[in-house]
């Protein structure tokens, strides 16, 4: 369990402090070098790019570069916040992000619990393997699959017309009310199996004596899941929730970009597409950067809020 691991780690740290640090260091050159490499990697790929943020406060022109582009203060942010499409895109991103997050957790946990109850080892492995395979498809492939199955001559419409007796095919991509759910469905289809793996792993770490004790007390299968498995998963769930909450505004790109069209653009346009339209396509890299900063700030706030809540309720937290 996560809590146990963290505890054991910190006691190991204490042990290191008591001995001579240099002697300790000499004995583990590999560990030190690899962590240094990781640190350098982190600085280069996570911290140096943040320097690019200064372009948000400039009227950045690639020909002039960072140093000679004109400084414009918060003008680009002002332009961003005056744009109606931006708010629309923000709303859609948030909505799809939250829907995806909820579905992500509910389906992955439910799937892990159900799979865990399967007693035939072969069937369990088989289902698990099949279920996580879509994870390895790229989003563009998934987009094409979704497009095909929901097309007017796709499998869903064929089914509706031949079995349910619909007269006309439904144009799924022309109804605003469907779009968010189509995105959610695609996410569930692609990621549920993969997301369930970590829960399945956590379930195997639960002390079997708990179940044995429950058996003695005459608990039913369902009661064991409800009173033992789920509470034992709670720390894992909280940590994953906190990590994922920062990704709420990364609600995908390919699905919305490819499947969106003029009829449903009010609900399909998301922030990343907005950045593409108003930033890169207009060569207004500064505006794009400003929108990117906005996204990061929101993500940071969400993570902090989540962490603070976790602290209040006494749950597992990130920092």
């Amino acid at each position: 369990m996560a809590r146990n691991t963290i505890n054991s780690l910190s006691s190991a740290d204490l042990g290191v402090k008591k001995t001579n640090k240099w002697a300790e260091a000499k004995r583990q050159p590999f560990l030190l070098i690899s962590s240094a490499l990781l640190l350098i990697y982190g600085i280069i790929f996570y911290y140096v790019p943040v320097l690019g943020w200064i372009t948000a406060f400039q009227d950045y022109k690639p020909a002039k570069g960072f140093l000679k582009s004109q400084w414009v203060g918060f003008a680009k942010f002002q332009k961003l916040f005056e744009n109606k499409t931006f708010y629309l895109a923000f709303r859609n991103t948030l909505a799809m992000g939250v829907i995806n997050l909820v579905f992500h957790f509910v389906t992955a946990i439910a799937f892990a619990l159900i799979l865990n109850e399967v007693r035939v080892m072969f069937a369990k492995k088989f289902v698990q393997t099949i279920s996580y395979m879509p994870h390895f498809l790229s989003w563009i492939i998934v987009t094409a699959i979704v497009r095909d199955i929901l097309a007017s001559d796709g499998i869903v419409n064929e089914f509706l017309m031949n079995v349910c007796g619909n007269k006309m095919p439904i144009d799924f991509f022309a109804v605003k009310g469907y779009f968010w759910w189509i995105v959610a469905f695609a996410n569930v289809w692609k990621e549920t199996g993969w997301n369930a793996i970590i829960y399945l792993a956590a379930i195997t770490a639960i002390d079997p004596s708990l179940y044995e004790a429950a058996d003695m007390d005459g608990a039913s299968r369902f009661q064991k899941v409800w009173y033992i498995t789920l509470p034992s998963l709670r720390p894992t769930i909280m940590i994953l929730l906190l990590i994922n909450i920062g990704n709420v505004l990364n609600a995908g790109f390919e699905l919305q970009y490819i499947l969106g069209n003029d009829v449903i653009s009010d609900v399909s346009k998301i922030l990343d597409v907005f950045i593409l339209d108003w930033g890169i396509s207009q060569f207004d890299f500064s505006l794009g950067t400003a929108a990117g900063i906005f996204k990061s700030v929101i993500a940071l706030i969400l993570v902090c809020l989540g962490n603070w809540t976790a602290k209040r309720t006494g749950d597992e937290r990130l920092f």
Partner: protein
Amino acid sequence: MKKTKIAAVALASLMSVSALAGCNKTPGASSGTAAPGETKQAAPGQIKEFSAFFAVPATTEINKDNEVQKIIAEKIGAKCNETWLAGQQPSEAVGVFIASGEYPDFINGGDAMKALYEAGALIAWDDYIDKYPNIKEFFSDYEWSQFRQSDGKIYWMNPFENIYGEDKTTTQNGEAFWIQARVLEWAKYPKIETLDDYFKVLEDYNKANPTTHDGKKNIPYTMLCEDWRYFCLENAPEFLDGYPNDGSCIVDVNTKKIVDYNTTPTAKRYFKKLNEEYAKGVIDTGAFTQTYDEYISKLSTGVVLGMCDQWWDFAYTVNDVFKTQNTEQYGYNYIPLGLTIDKGMENQWYTSGGTLNVSSGIAITTSCKDVEGAFKFIDDLLSQEIHDLRFWGVKDVDYKVDENGMYYRTEEMRKNAADPNWKTKHLCTYSYFPQWSGTSRDGKNAMMPAEQLSEFKDTLPEPVKKVFAAYGANTYIDLLGSVNKAGPWFPMYSYSNNMKTDTKGGEAWTKMGECKHAWLPKVVMSKEFDKTWDEYMKAYAACKPEDFVAEMQQELDRRIAAYEASKK
């Protein structure tokens, strides 16, 4: 988005690496100039390789071992590996190039040329043009001067719609309301002048003949609205009012003022008509959600009776499918109509004499290591021998020459020329490099096979021949009956295409586009047209179209002044 970006950057770096490789292979290659119409033979093993990126999706992507490309390479000592836009917007692709700072040797960034110029990515042409006679010959001094950018230099040339000698245009390359030949034949070749006439014929035909030859249900009218191709839906009002394709606005010839065609009474009538037809079920219900590929495959099956589009946007693909599938006989080919909103108006759907779009073209980038070689490559491609190889193909394989020196093709050669396989493995047109239309330097033949009158007439499908005969026309142009009143400022889109959000007018232009994309489908599908139209107009006014009009007016005044000055 991250994934696409990374892929694009990877692609860009890959291309630049290949560009470097290309230049390294040719140490000390000579960069001599050639007389017009003449090319030097290069020794084998000395072939330079250039790279090019075109910000349009490929119509044909040729094979690596393409036969004509090899012949051209042997003759001029250079070849070019072309890369095309795939699944991106032109300006996105160019934006990624700019962000990376690495470019292919040649680039045609479409509407994003100005951004490339501002990023300092392009080589100025001024010192080179005089050295290359075929390039210099391509434009008059006044035409070249229109390409000058804010620093007074020339950075690119538009490769298209330039006529050498006598005009031999046979096809309406631009926009029109198109109608299938079978509809006209059934209706006994009526006179169709207005939008109302047009939809009436489509409806009547569809009632009498609801299916195609193989039993597929007809779609009387469809329109493409995907992304920038939504001109098929949105810009008809400027033509219906009798104005030429200025693209983004109307220029009132008398007052020399810019008029916004989105808000004219004609625009309202046009969309009201579409609204009525949509309610009647005449318009394709999938029109607003179809992609370009879906649209083309719809057209290729022959089910679509009519649509508004530009020839180059559909005909090259669709007509070839009709030819190879042997469905031409059913009259699926499209005939252009010069419609106006009311009877008895002049129309300017076709504008003669070529159109000079100075906003885009082919450029040589700062990443190119052999600039002289690159100019020589363009120059060589314009020589008559190579031009013939590009567009006519190999003598006696792709065309024959009769005793009078006229080029012609046998039926098999024509089938080949329309065959996608043959196009990828044999023909190499370098289709986005500069090219001539009009008359060949031999004074007899046409530069392009499609403009060779004998060839044009012989290749017309039977049903189209009948249409031509019924209306007494020799070419598609004759069918339109357009007049030419375009002023020296024409076409205004060569300015608006380059507008970006860094100006007030450009910001309005972008917002207007977004607004039209979102509202026009609503307007057409609305159950209460007038109410929706008013809402649309309100949303449209909020985009401040007056800022756009003001900037266009400024450009119009500038162009008129420049033209007056050049006459003195």
